[in-house]
């Protein structure tokens, strides 16, 4: 007589769990893998959407440009732009500089208003002073001119506004102020070593007939700050300054 086969206790339970555990593992594996894959797919499609449809309102990024400071009012810029176009800077014209009649015409502005436009440049610029009837720069004038020229920072244009005092006749003073402007230009050419200087420097000579400076301008930085200054002296000059405006 043979003994009937009796499985070890619990073996039937273990055998019945085999498919259950395997199925659970497979099913959960499928769920987890599908979840991971779907998540990746969603992340990537989100990135693709952002790439093809960038935000309409992108944060603004500062862009490098020439300086633009508070005194660059529309009126100031309008006058300066007229100077640029009329005095041969903007178009690379062979014509250089503007004489009083030109300035009067294109500036369309009174003497006082013209001078007032330059008031904010008091600290940026300086008054280079000359002897009576002279157009030669002295050493202090040269040093001041160089200091101002090399303190360019972000400016594009350098303005030279030469004048003459009331002494003498109009024609003579017109020529004298022209020579003074040229003296400044010649010295800048010597020290600047800049082949593009012609497109940077705006020359104006006003003679004694337009926008004369009042004695108040004696308080401005000048090449002869320690000497006596009056209305005659301050007009034997060339005002020089970089202009921090985008024109």
């Amino acid at each position, binding site marked *: 007589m043979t003994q009937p086969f009796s499985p070890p206790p619990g073996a039937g339970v273990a055998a019945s769990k085999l498919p259950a555990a395997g199925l659970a*593992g497979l099913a959960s594996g499928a769920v987890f*893998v599908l979840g991971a894959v779907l998540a990746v797919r969603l992340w990537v499609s989100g990135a693709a959407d952002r790439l*093809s449809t960038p935000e309409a309102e992108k944060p603004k990024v500062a862009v490098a440009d020439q300086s633009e400071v508070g005194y660059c009012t529309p009126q100031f810029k309008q006058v300066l732009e007229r100077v640029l176009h009329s005095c041969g800077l903007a178009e690379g014209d062979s014509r250089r500089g503007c004489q009083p009649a030109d300035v009067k015409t294109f500036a369309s502005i009174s003497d006082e208003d013209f001078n007032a436009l330059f008031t904010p440049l008091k600290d940026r610029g300086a008054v280079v002073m000359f002897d009576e009837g002279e157009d030669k720069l002295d050493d202090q004038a040269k040093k001041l001119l160089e200091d101002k020229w090399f303190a360019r920072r972000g400016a594009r244009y350098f303005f030279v506004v030469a004048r003459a005092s009331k002494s003498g006749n109009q024609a003579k003073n017109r020529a004298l102020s022209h020579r003074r402007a040229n003296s400044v230009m010649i010295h800048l050419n010597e020290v600047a070593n800049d082949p593009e200087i012609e497109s940077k420097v705006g020359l104006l000579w006003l003679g004694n007939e337009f926008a004369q400076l009042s004695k108040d301008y004696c308080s401005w930085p000048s090449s002869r700050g320690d000497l006596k200054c009056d209305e005659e002296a301050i007009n034997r000059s060339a005002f020089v300054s970089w202009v921090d405006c985008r024109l």
Partner: protein
Amino acid sequence: MYSPYSALFKEHYWGGIPISLFALGSFAFYAAFAVYLLVYGSRAPKRALRFFGAASLLPLLVSLIMFTISVTKLGTVCKTCAGIYISSLLLAVAGVMAFLSSRDDAPGEPRAVIGAALPLIWLVSLGAISLMPALVYAGSVPDERPYLTKCGELKVPKIKNDEFIKVTTSRPIQPTLLFEDPLCPTCKAFHERLVGENIIEKLDIDLVLFPLDSECNWMLDQALHPGACIVSKAVLCGGVQARAVLEWAYEEQEFLSRAGKQGPNVLRAAIKQRWGDVMLKCVDDRKTETRLNNHLHFASDNNIPVSTPQMYLGTRRVCDEDTDLGLRFTLGQLAPEVLK
């Protein structure tokens, strides 16, 4: 934070395939295997428990390698990485416990017996599942190529009245223009990456200095990197040694940045100590100030964004994100010879 170890196949896919995707796949496998063991309970097969014990050490091993790289090479640990390290550790602990439990048999509850080949099948499954998220990623990433060339070009290719700084390299083949600030940490990281990935030697680099310091840079209201103007002048004065001066500035960036905050004289002293009197005289020379101003005007003439670093391949601007995550892909597309 950019890590050169964070992704694979960076030349073929923009940014590469993140290695964390392999972790995602493998953890999906381990989670499913845990469910499998859980359903079995105390009758779980010994082979399954032992397989789980052994396989659960793999993520810990990889985590240890990546943690060592993070600490020794990168000097920092990312949040996601820390999460993966902790998960790997917990998984390994669970695996060891599973392995130990395989020695015991509950009375009256014999363990199920499985075929000897099954662990091999699981191992192959682990490998396949680990790859799946990465494969899906690789198969669905958007095509970045059309966007690589849409970040602008130089309007004015030559610097007016001056010259760029030539950064000497051993095999210059790709004309490249870089705008850098010697005290900018991102520029330092970018430079180190170009050096570390052996890219820099194949670049024919013209350097434009763009210090983010309001002392000389009128485009800023306040200095982001105080002292950067003075250090930039030192780089300008470096002449043929400009690269050496630039790399010195990057190596000593923390010290120089602190010195810059203390004032120009502290910085001057540091420059003099390293490079001597002649360099300092050059730094203080008006001509050097004019040269630096010319560099800033070059940036202004081209209306570049006020940020550093910026890279131009020829005259074409490389987008900011392409100088970071997408650098190798971008170079592979726009200047493949650089990566050869």
